[in-house]
């Protein structure tokens, strides 16, 4: 539903706001996307890897106990946590790494926040024999030591970024600087449906496997489409991957859950849909957290993966057009939801994913018992358990 004739535009959003040095590289990528990705050979190899390496299709699980506990709509979980490396990120990087190889690029760079996209990229590069460097904010390197070690085990080099707020946005800045410098032999593997055209479209198309499978699976299980799709949104790739194949099914409502942090009114959040303004950032026009002077201010979230002051341009367009609704979920709601799903379903979700679960806890009881809510369980929480233990311990100390 691109509403504009210009490529890479989603209504008023998207585009290609980059230094001149990168224009030819983006043209090259766009041509490769149009020529290589639809080819039979590429499709065959990608499908093969998704099946035999990444573990697709991932199951759609009926969440019986939380459905009973919440007493409303039936809740289904799309189990991206069961994909290789523990999150949906692998779908996109397998596609992009194959594309990089087909384009003759031997070196792949990536940015990462929590480390999930970095781990996935390092994994795909190990599999395909590509050199891999991952930029990660120095603060995230400290917070996510385990994922740093995983990337190194996989043969990638992790480059801590000390500039700015030392988080995801600065990692993207530094990855872009690397790309500007090494553009001729380097492929930049962006981890979400964001950045300059064609990335938002490229990443969406590699992630739509989530929604394509979920559509088939729910039709098999229930004989009808779901009423509501729920997913967390940072840059927005797991949400877009789930939503997009349902975009013309007007009866299916979309809800994106963004980082409410300490509350939108506190100013410490990552709620670009709720509190953002249109701006130009990281190569795209989208909704951003920005002051009156156009300076981007750092986001805040309990989850490093949602700790981003922008959002994919297609989501911004979905918001404006009313196709999707976006809600802010706070840190503490997400933390509670992580424990809730763990205890009732035996699934420890990632903190990012827990934002979607937190919203389902509010939404499901308001719906009829024959309604169907399908949630993208975008990642597992193994990476977060140490942080969660510390947060829960700190919470208990506060109460006493």
């Amino acid at each position, binding site marked *: 539903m691109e509403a504009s004739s210009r490529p890479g535009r989603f209504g008023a959003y998207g585009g290609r706001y980059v230094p001149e*040095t990168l224009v030819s590289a983006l043209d090259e990528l766009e041509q490769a996307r149009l020529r290589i990705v639809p080819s039979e050979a590429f499709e065959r190899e990608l499908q093969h890897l998704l099946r035999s390496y990444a573990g697709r299709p991932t199951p759609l699980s009926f969440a019986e106990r939380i459905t009973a506990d919440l007493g409303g709509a039936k809740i289904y979980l799309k189990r991206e946590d069961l994909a290789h490396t523990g999150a949906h990120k692998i779908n996109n990087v397998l596609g992009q790494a194959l594309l990089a190889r087909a384009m003759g690029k031997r070196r792949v760079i990536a940015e990462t926040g929590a480390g999930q996209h970095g781990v996935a990229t390092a994994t795909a590069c190990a599999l395909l024999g590509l050199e891999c460097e991952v930029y990660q904010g120095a603060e995230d390197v400290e917070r996510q030591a385990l994922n740093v070690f995983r990337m190194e085990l996989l043969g990638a080099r992790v480059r801590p970024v000390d500039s700015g707020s030392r988080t995801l946005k600065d990692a993207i800045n530094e990855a872009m600087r690397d790309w500007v410098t090494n553009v001729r032999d380097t492929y930049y593997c962006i981890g979400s449906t964001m950045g300059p055209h064609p990335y938002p479209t490229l990443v969406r198309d590699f992630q739509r496997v989530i929604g394509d499978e979920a559509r088939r699976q729910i039709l098999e299980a229930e004989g009808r489409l779901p009423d509501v799709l729920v997913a967390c949104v940072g840059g927005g790739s797991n949400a877009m991957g789930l939503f997009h194949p349902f975009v013309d099914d007007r009866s299916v409502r979309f809800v994106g859950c963004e980082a409410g942090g300490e509350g939108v009114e506190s100013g410490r959040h990552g709620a670009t849909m709720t509190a953002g303004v249109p701006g130009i950032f990281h190569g795209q026009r989208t909704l951003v957290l920005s002051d009156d002077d156009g300076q981007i201010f750092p986001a805040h979230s309990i989850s490093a993966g949602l700790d981003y002051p922008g959002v994919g341009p297609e989501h911004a367009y979905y918001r404006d057009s009313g196709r999707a609704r976006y809600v802010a979920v706070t840190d503490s709601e997400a933390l509670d939801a992580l424990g809730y799903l763990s205890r009732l379903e035996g699934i420890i979700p990632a903190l990012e994913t827990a934002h979607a679960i937190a919203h389902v806890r509010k939404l499901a009881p308001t719906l009829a018992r024959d309604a169907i809510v399908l949630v993208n369980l975008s990642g597992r929480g193994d990476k977060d358990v140490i942080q969660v233990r510390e947060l829960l311990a700190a919470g208990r100390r506060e109460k006493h």
Partner: protein
Amino acid sequence: MGRLSECFRALRSKGERGLLPFVTAGDPDLELTEALVLSFAEAGADAIEIGVPFSDPIADGPTIQRSSQRALAAKTSLRRIVELVARVRPKVDLPLVLMGYANPFFAMGEERFAAIAAEVGVDGVICPDLPPEEGEVFYAALESRGVDPILLAAPTTSAERLEMLAKRTRGFLYYVALTGVTGARSAISSDLREGVARVRSVSDVPVCVGFGVSTPEQAREIASYADGIVVASAIIDRMERVEDRSEKVDVAAQFVSDLKGVLRRG
């Protein structure tokens, strides 16, 4: 004819090359920026680039990143920068160019900024993350008010696109000397001469070279084929090495004067 076009016409008729020093507005405060602009004019600069700091400068290396952070820490805003231009405009006659990322300009509003820029006497605007395809409205708004939209070309720019950029730019074409971010380099690319020649073969628009230019020797070499040279990080590096405010102005102005000396002898 705008100040920039007039400036390069005069330089060409004298057989001289232009020097365009850069200063980040508000680093460490706007008072020092004003002193730098005035002293650069006196030291022989042909035009001055005033940098509008941005929180996320993706085309800049560590020097301009640090400089931008200092400026933002001092609460420098685009509004205060145009006020600075209004203050210095009556005191200097050379072209003043604002260089900054798109978002601060768009946050003020393209039309509104263009009107204010024209009113205070900004001669040109360089926006490193706004290629002409995305900047149509902004660039047209500037041009209609007599402010030159200055486009960039890079070593990776295709021949076809180079011709389009050379045609669309106003004042001069900013040729990026290397594939990379801003920052002083010990050597300039051997392909640079050929890159500038590519522009010459399709257009007679003045070409200024920037990114990485940091010594009088490099300036001399580039002057043998370009119309002008932009120097930024190398000036800021020198100012960072001294503490005292007036000393900062002195070392920067001395460097500008040394560079211009080379370009005069051309």
